[in-house]
């Protein structure tokens, strides 16, 4: 039964008739293409040169239309990247949306624009505005996607190839140069017809919107050029529908912050945008242009890959390259079609012919080198008048101003931040670049990374005064700068935008503190008031003890910076301390996994209280007591509080030992919690334990009263508890225990007496005897 498509008058069950209708349209030459297809590019050029249409309309967002003069400029050389950006305010927080289009030499769309302009035709980009497309994006219809996939699969099975890419290579690319343009495009229309009309499922909302807009732009052009023929270059999927659709303009809301940009790029950068092997695509296009076979392009690529492997130290000879070419050609011939060589065939050839040992797919030097060759390193160019994006200009101006030299080798630069304002500015610039992820840093000799100095953000090496940076020109520097161009016109603005993005929405105290620190080291002055305000808010709302202590740490660190308002920082310190104390009891019932972190922050909080006399120590002591007396508190945390209170002199070692004894009573699970309690005690009263006999004796008395079975059960926990001590400290504790067992009193650092040594040997003999199963009464 004949079905009807969405078009008013097309019989979808008769593909050949449909294709004939599309191809014989008297007013419009519909040119279906596949993106980045060299074969399509060749035939688009042939048709345009033969038919010389008065207008060439190309699928591409109309936002980019102001860039068309630069795209078709005689000095322009792809790879290029076109960028559209706007602010989306539809959600809770405004977000910046960026969409990029890579442009390669072999792109049929670019060839259409270029040749159209050369022929004096009007050239236009006619796709819907990006903003309108994004607003309509309702997801792709699953049934349609599945039916298209089924159709391609069935097609592949019919002609004996496994995937669509291989089918495409066999059917279109391999023989593109020999086919007539009519044959080529009609075959492509037939393929698209099958994919589009063979299955069920509705089009996605954005596809429908785009097609209606494309058609509307075509209608506009037809009215504008009533006597001429126009050419329309679109994806083949659209080309079989557009002739039968009704046009409707897609409107986008105006955005004064919207912007477009065209920049010279590199093959490596466009590979990151989804074109897997740009150099291979370009090489094939070039071969076709010169009337060469795909195998010639493949040979050149494999020879170049072999040279790259040799440069990297591998032993690949000409004979191996010959073997690789034979294999690539053989794979195409035996499992596809002669000449239908894909990038995967080339990599397969490298796997088989270059790798002389065990293959490690991700790290093998031959494969890594070959992939790099297929991706390529060529850089595009734009005429000088097109200018460079302001951010890139600013970056290089800053580099010059700070006398940084970005070469191939790592160079060391110093910044005496506290004494020299120029070097402070240089430090701020380097911190901004680091924040933006600009690849311009290399490891310093003898250091762990590219930076040595006071790391305020991580709270490390704060005793240092001078920053040392390892600076180098990273491989992707230009590409990363290009990606950042929409973030602002200067590095300062871009860094501010990135930090502001991190601060968008609700933020906890720890992150607010971290952002403030970052803002200070990057010296983002205009942002500091809002960063301070955000931290103030977070301190008032964040109920996490750990976050609050981390924020306190960050604010304390910031006191080093004289430029910040000292009074405000003091206020923040007080606020963070009080809030941390207040939430401490509620944080003490944490689960076992989170207990260690809470204990760490309790120790940090106590240290702040000890170092800063303005902080309310009584408040801290009161909160520690609350946790210590709360039987429901996590035992590690509770033990830590008891240990701290003992260290502060708020309780006695005997009381701590009593609490330990209590915690070791009851069922097995409770006894084991006693181990965690002891660990908490030892973590916070380590020095007390080492210098005062009383706590040690108290703990010892508790332990020797434990029934042997219980002792064995908690032994692993006790071992972990004592792991807080270093070996020398454990030895000292051992000496004290021996002295205690022998009834000696006095400090152990007087040395192990002869008597104590005898006691130790007796104890050792007893242990050995018990282990050998000759357990008898233990006497010393």
């Amino acid at each position: 039964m004949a079905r009807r498509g969405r078009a008013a008058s097309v019989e979808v069950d008769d593909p050949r008739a449909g294709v004939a209708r599309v191809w014989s349209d008297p007013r419009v030459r519909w040119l279906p293409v596949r993106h980045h297809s060299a074969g399509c590019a060749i035939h688009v050029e042939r048709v345009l040169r033969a038919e010389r249409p008065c207008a060439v309309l190309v699928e591409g967002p109309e936002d980019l239309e102001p860039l068309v003069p630069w795209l078709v400029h005689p000095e322009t050389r792809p790879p290029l990247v076109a960028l559209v950006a706007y602010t989306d305010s539809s959600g809770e927080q405004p977000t910046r949306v960026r969409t990029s289009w890579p442009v390669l030499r072999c792109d049929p769309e670019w060839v259409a624009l270029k040749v159209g302009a050369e022929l004096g035709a009007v050239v236009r980009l006619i796709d819907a505005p990006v903003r309108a497309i994004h607003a309509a994006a309702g997801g792709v219809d699953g049934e349609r996607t599945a039916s298209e996939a089924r159709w391609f699969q069935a097609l592949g099975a019919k002609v004996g190839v496994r995937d669509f890419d291989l089918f495409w290579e066999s059917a279109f690319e391999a023989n593109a140069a020999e086919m007539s343009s009519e044959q080529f495009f009609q075959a492509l229309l037939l393929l698209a017809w099958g994919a589009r009309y063979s299955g069920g499922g509705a089009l996605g909302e954005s596809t429908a919107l785009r097609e209606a807009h494309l058609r509307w732009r075509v209608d506009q052009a037809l009215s504008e050029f009533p006597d001429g023929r126009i050419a329309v270059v679109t994806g083949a999927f659209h080309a079989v529908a557009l002739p039968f659709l009704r046009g409707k303009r897609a409107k986008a809301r105006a955005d004064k912050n919207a912007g477009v940009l065209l920049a010279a790029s590199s093959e490596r950068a466009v590979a990151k945008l989804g074109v897997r092997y740009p150099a291979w695509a370009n090489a094939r296009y070039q071969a076709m242009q010169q009337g060469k076979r795909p195998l010639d392009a493949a040979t050149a690529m494999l020879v170049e890959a072999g040279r790259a492997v040799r440069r990297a130290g591998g032993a690949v000879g000409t004979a191996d390259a010959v073997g690789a070419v034979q294999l690539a050609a053989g794979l195409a011939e035996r499992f596809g079609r002669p000449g239908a060589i894909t990038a995967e065939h080339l990599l397969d050839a490298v796997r088989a012919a270059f790798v002389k040992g065990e293959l490690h797919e991700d790290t093998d030097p031959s494969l890594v080198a070959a992939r790099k060759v297929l991706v390529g390193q060529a850089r595009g160019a734009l005429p000088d008048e097109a200018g460079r994006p302001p951010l890139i200009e600013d970056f290089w101006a800053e580099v010059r101003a700070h006398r940084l030299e970005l070469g191939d080798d790592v160079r060391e630069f110093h910044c005496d931040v506290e004494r020299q304002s120029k070097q402070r500015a240089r430090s701020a610039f380097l911190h901004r670049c680091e924040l933006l992820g600009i690849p311009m840093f290399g490891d310093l000799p003898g250091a762990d990374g590219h930076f040595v100095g006071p790391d305020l953000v991580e709270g490390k090496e704060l005793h240092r005064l001078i920053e040392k940076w390892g600076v180098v020109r990273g491989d992707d520097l230009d590409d990363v700068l290009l990606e950042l161009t929409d973030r602002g016109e200067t590095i300062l603005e871009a860094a501010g935008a990135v930090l502001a993005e991190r601060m968008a929405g609700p933020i906890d105290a720890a992150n607010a503190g971290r952002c403030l620190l970052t803002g200070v080291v990057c010296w983002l002055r205009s942002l500091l008031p809002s960063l301070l305000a955000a931290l103030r808010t977070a301190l008032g709302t964040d109920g996490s003890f750990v976050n609050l202590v981390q924020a306190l740490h960050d604010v304390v660190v910031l006191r080093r910076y004289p430029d910040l308002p000292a009074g405000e920082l003091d206020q923040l310190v007080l606020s963070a301390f009080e809030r941390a104390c207040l939430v401490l009891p509620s944080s003490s019932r944490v689960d076992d996994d989170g207990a260690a972190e809470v204990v760490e922050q309790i120790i940090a909080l106590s240290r702040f209280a000890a170092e800063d006399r303005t902080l309310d120590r009584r408040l801290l002591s009161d909160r520690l007591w609350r946790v210590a007396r709360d039987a429901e508190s996590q035992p590690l945390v509770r033990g830590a509080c008891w240990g701290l209170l003992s260290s502060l002199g708020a309780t006695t070692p005997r009381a701590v030992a009593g609490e330990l004894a209590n915690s070791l009573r009851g069922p097995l699970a409770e006894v084991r919690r006693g181990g965690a309690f002891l660990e908490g005690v030892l973590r916070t009263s380590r020095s007390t334990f080492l210098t005062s006999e009383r706590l040690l004796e108290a703990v010892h008395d508790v332990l020797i009263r434990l029934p042997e079975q219980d002792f064995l059960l908690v032994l692993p926990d006790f071992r972990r508890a004592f792991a807080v001590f270093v070996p020398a400290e454990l030895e000292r504790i051992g000496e004290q225990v021996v002295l205690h067992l022998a009834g000696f009193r006095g400090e152990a650092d007087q040395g192990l007496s002869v008597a104590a040594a005898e006691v130790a040997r007796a104890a050792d003999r007893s242990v050995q005897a018990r282990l050998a199963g000759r357990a008898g009464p233990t006497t010393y």
Partner: protein
Amino acid sequence: MDAIRLPAEQRCAVELEALRQNDPDPRPLGWLLSARAVERFIVGTGGSALSATIDGEDVQVVVRRKVFGMDPLIRRAIVTLASDRALLLIGEPGTAKSWLSEHLAAAICGDSLLAMQGSAGLTEDQIRYTWNYALLLAEGPSPRALVAAPLYTGMKNGRIVRFEEITRAPHEVQDTLLQALSEKVMLVPELAGADGVVLARPGFNLIGTANTRDRGVNEMSAALKRRFHFETVPPIDDLQQEIEVVREQVAERTRGSPAEQVTLGDDVLELLVTTFHELRGGSTLDGVPLERTQAAMSTAEAVSVGHHAALYAACFADGAVQPEHVVMQLDGTAAKGDSDDRKLLRDYFEVAVKPRAARELGAWKAYFAARRHLP
């Protein structure tokens, strides 16, 4: 035929004939099947049947998959064998290198028996040719007195020659292959005229195998390496695929034996294969790290354990393989009696099996209880 194991071309004769009758593609010179048909022989027809006439009867033949998880490798290997390069399959022991080599040879030239086994005792005349000394003494050097070895036969008849464990052969013996692989010629200086020159006929090529565990491929000379295309055969990465392989292989090995009727349940098979999979990968399926054993915990070893467990169940139990039967075979078959590996096996039971036993998953509880059989 009364034999413990038939060569692949006899075992799979029906499949090969069906493929031959359904092979429209061009065949490389000297091959019995096209490249696509050879590929289908190795990767199977995915359950669909080929119509063929075998011994005068019309039959439907489903070609079974022979190897798993290496389809792109298969294509490269086939194309390599159609080129002037030889093929070297390398990988861990038990990853089906020899199995693949045998089946490729069977499909390409219908003869997988032109095979040499690399060892320290392998000599040049076991590769090239030797003499019938009685005839040699009686008649002097003559084609009649020459006793052909696999390389000679393969070159003369245009066949695939197999060289198993090539890196275990002495260096100078390996290099015997150089002239044959590069110039496709073998000189027999003892014979005069045309008899003294063996020119390789189309269809001749060589498949070597080498395992990466005991002696590395570095033992090969650079000159010889250049004559090969290397392919690394990976272990089966997919647990379910590995279970299927072990199920099928155990069934094949027990066919015609007392263990043929033995039940090897899914639950027992799962724990057997999971054990090998986890020990080989160095972590449990849940990501808990494990120490790897010295022994290669390959699929082939899993098949061996399954086979022996089935035999044990047939001979000394009630005809169903139990978890304890698997445990009994682990020490000798998998750990090869190595004391360190025994310890790692015992650790494996504590780290990986015990938690599953505690959750009473499938047969894991019985498996854990059976650890007492580990020495």
